[in-house]
């Protein structure tokens, strides 16, 4: 049912696209039709695949590093009041800076290669992951904490057995956001300075009025982002939520 609705929506969007091209009679270097874009995509499939691979690697590395850093920061903030006083305002301030504005300096520091884009993705997902997991850790139901205190539990064990599992659904929503943001970070990094990646390819095609190739790259990026989102949702369900929901008892019973 879900697959059918996705298919219908795709066909509908393609039909509207074709309709606009036919009705307006725009030249192909302004707005190419879906058939031409598909043809260009097929003709350039090796080129597009090569650049997709680069972007995908940047995104996945960025997600892995950003999530690890975010989780570590949230745990540290949640267990240390001193860290909350010192670090939290800094975090909020850095988040108020537009990350895009940092892209040129990152390229200057880290070069034109892979790492400036990875770092861009890390920067853009670090805050959503940190803040969602941290909020979850600070919102443990107070009754659990009272119970744990009457059981003479140490703060570290309360964190491990109660606060972290209770915060996993919040972490999962942070990770889902991160899955959406990470490709944006990588592509911005590629726009600022790169010689590989889908963002670079789009910029290159655009500059040479190869609008059909630009659209082919753009659609590839879109499909990649959707697949990434679906994968992240599936993974968080699989790894984090099944253990913490009470509606799926048959799995571990």
């Amino acid at each position, binding site marked *: 049912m879900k697959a059918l609705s996705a298919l219908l929506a795709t066909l509908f969007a393609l039909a509207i696209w074709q309709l606009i091209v036919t009705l307006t009679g725009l030249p192909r270097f302004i707005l190419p039709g879906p058939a031409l874009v598909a043809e260009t995509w097929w003709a350039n499939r090796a080129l597009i695949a090569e650049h997709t691979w680069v972007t995908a690697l940047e995104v996945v590395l960025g997600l892995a590093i950003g999530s690890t850093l975010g989780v570590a920061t949230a745990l540290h903030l949640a267990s240390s009041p001193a860290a909350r006083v010192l670090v939290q305002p800094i975090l909020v301030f850095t988040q108020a800076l537009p990350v895009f504005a940092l892209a040129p300096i990152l390229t200057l520091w880290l070069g034109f290669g892979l790492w400036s884009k990875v770092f861009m993705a890390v920067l853009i997902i670090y805050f959503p992951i940190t803040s969602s997991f941290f909020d979850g850790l600070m919102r443990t139901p107070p009754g659990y904490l*009272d*119970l744990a205190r*009457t*059981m*003479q*539990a140490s703060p570290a064990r309360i964190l491990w057995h109660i606060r972290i599992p209770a915060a996993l659904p919040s972490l999962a929503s942070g990770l889902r956001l991160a899955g959406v943001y990470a490709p944006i970070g990588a592509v911005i990094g590629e726009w600022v300075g790169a010689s590989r990646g889908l963002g670079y390819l789009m910029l290159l095609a655009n500059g040479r009025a190869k609008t059909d190739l630009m659209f082919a790259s753009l659609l590839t990026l879109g499909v990649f982002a959707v697949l990434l989102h679906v994968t992240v949702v599936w993974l968080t369900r699989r790894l984090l939520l099944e253990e913490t929901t009470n509606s799926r008892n048959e799995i571990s*019973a």
Partner: protein
Amino acid sequence: MTDAPGVTLQGGASINGAPLFAPLVLSLNAGEWTCLLGGSGVGKSTLLRLISGLATGAKFDGSVTASDALPVADRVAYMAQDDLLLPWATVRQNVQLGSRLRGEDTDTGRLARILSQVGLTDHAGKKPGALSGGQRQRVALARTLMEDKPIILLDEPFSSLDAQTRSAMQELTVDVLRGQTVLIVTHDPAEAARLGQSIFVLRPAGVQRFPHPTSPIPRPIDDLQTLECQAALLKLLREGSP
């Protein structure tokens, strides 16, 4: 477990300068059930939290002492109206929460005995979401028993259950908590009349000791003396409220 001590709380509490309850003395007889009855907002739960050493948000002037002069707070097991079961953990893991939180090995023989005592052996691998309200409260009871503490504090533990489940839980709880010093906080006169070996009524002016039926607990639900006590308690509570 060593012999359960008696516990005495004396003092008064206030919130932002406004008195919550006047200076009072509440003493729990060693190895007996004490019922503390009162309407909402008179500080019943605060009293219980003071004994268990939990934060209350009220300023307390006074002391909590045990008859054997040892500290009280670390010899307390606590059970609340909310069963406080961890939804991601199985029944068995919930029951052994205390030892998991202290990093101790669980006495598995004891765990199996307690699970069978409360009739949960067949449900040990399930998660709380798959259980009924009464079953969940039995898991909470098993977790309290597993703690093996001499002082048991029950904060309206049965008030979210329906009438027949509640009366069955009262009998089961009395049955498994023999020898411990128990304080049960409740707003239900019937519960106090059935379970109290001492009954106190808490009002803003202080606590008032109330005569309790003489028969052993849990008293039958159709025991005449118990029903009279229940009626008299309800009358007293209603006088106290406008």
